[in-house]
């Protein structure tokens, strides 16, 4: 992996641990048990200070990930679900809590496929043979943003923030797994 990929990930102090997220979202009882056992949990994004709002891609991502066999859920009570629609062309996938680092490569694979699936319908006619250039933004120029939240060995929340080309998501898997394992082993 080249150094460029490492620069696409920023590690920051996490906003909340999983238990704190569940409290923050006022989730109790059977639903809380179910969400705690999910491999991947979609969390609120906090865009524009809307602390309980989710990314606009949440429904589409949930369907896509389940279609790929992922054990994924959304950290919300059904009647309180709301999305924050940011109308710029960046693909903002929001925040994911992962149960363990072993789930990471699955999640990154799903994110990569999800981005590709969304872009490919426009990418199918991008090649203008006569002009010998691409006339529509190719996949590697679509920017993606997402955060992976987890906890270190002391139980402190840590966020890994990715911001970069859609094409590079699958290439950061190894580095991100290493980072997560290092913080868990500390």
């Amino acid at each position, binding site marked *: 992996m080249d150094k460029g990929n490492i620069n696409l990930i920023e590690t920051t102090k996490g906003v909340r641990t999983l238990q704190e997220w569940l409290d923050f979202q006022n989730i109790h009882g059977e639903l809380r048990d179910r969400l705690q056992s999910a491999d991947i949990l979609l969390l609120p994004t906090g*865009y*524009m200070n*809307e602390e309980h*709002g989710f990314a*606009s891609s*949440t*429904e*589409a991502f*949930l*369907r896509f990930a389940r279609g790929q066999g992922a054990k994924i859920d*959304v950290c*919300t009570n*059904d009647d309180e*679900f*709301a*999305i*924050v*629609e*940011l*109308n*710029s*062309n*960046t693909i903002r996938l929001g925040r994911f809590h992962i149960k363990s680092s072993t789930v990471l490569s699955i999640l990154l694979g799903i994110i990569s496929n999800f981005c590709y699936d969304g872009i490919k*319908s*426009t990418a*199918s*006619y991008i090649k*203008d043979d*006569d*002009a010998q250039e691409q*006339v*529509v933004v190719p996949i590697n120029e679509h*920017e993606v943003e997402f955060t992976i939240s987890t906890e270190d060995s002391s139980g402190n929340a840590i966020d890994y923030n990715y911001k970069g080309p859609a094409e590079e998501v699958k290439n950061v898997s190894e580095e991100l797994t290493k980072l997560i394992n290092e913080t868990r082993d500390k």
Partner: protein
Amino acid sequence: MKQEINDSASLMLQDGFDFDKKLSELEMEKKHEQQMKNEVEANKLWAVIQLVEIYKEFVNLFHILHEGKYYDAWCKAEEIEISIHFLLRNFPAFDVCVKDIAITVSNLQRMYPYRLFISAVYKIKKEKCTICGKTVSIRNLCPHVCGKVYNGELCQREVEQCELIGADIVTNPEHKYSVLFPKDDNHKTVDHYDYTNVERFSKVWIRPFMRITIKLSSSDLN
């Protein structure tokens, strides 16, 4: 199906093609198939209607541009781009029919001087599926995927409750029509942009369905 698509597309390239008459005939056919619950045929007809609409709007774009209504032409180009996106998402085999249009639209967009746009931020609290009418529930999702075609209709989300929470100035908007225009002392919108490159493009674009190959230097895009 590919041959049928090519034949329909070739007909539309002819001068004086009556798009509205064709659309009306296709809508009637689609309605019939929908009533018969023949989803495959209804979906195919949706795609052909989309194709005819794209060609019709592309001809409109040509005329609007040549009337010097540059912002209107910019908005029309975006509408065509969106229609092509949904058509190809559901029917990728139509790419051969819309490739030239997509390239011309994309080349035209690159000629525009617009660089800054408004990106509105909404909090959507309640929305429903346009196919089954059910309110979207994240725990009990209906079977309809937004952006897919069901029985000849495109599935969309109808927002029932939302709140405008802000607006950003961005360079890569989702909605290209959201161009920033200043207002004068009388609160009238002022179009201060330099459309030299768009004018140059319109001078070489003399028939709607012609290929234009352009080569741009970085200074052309500044």
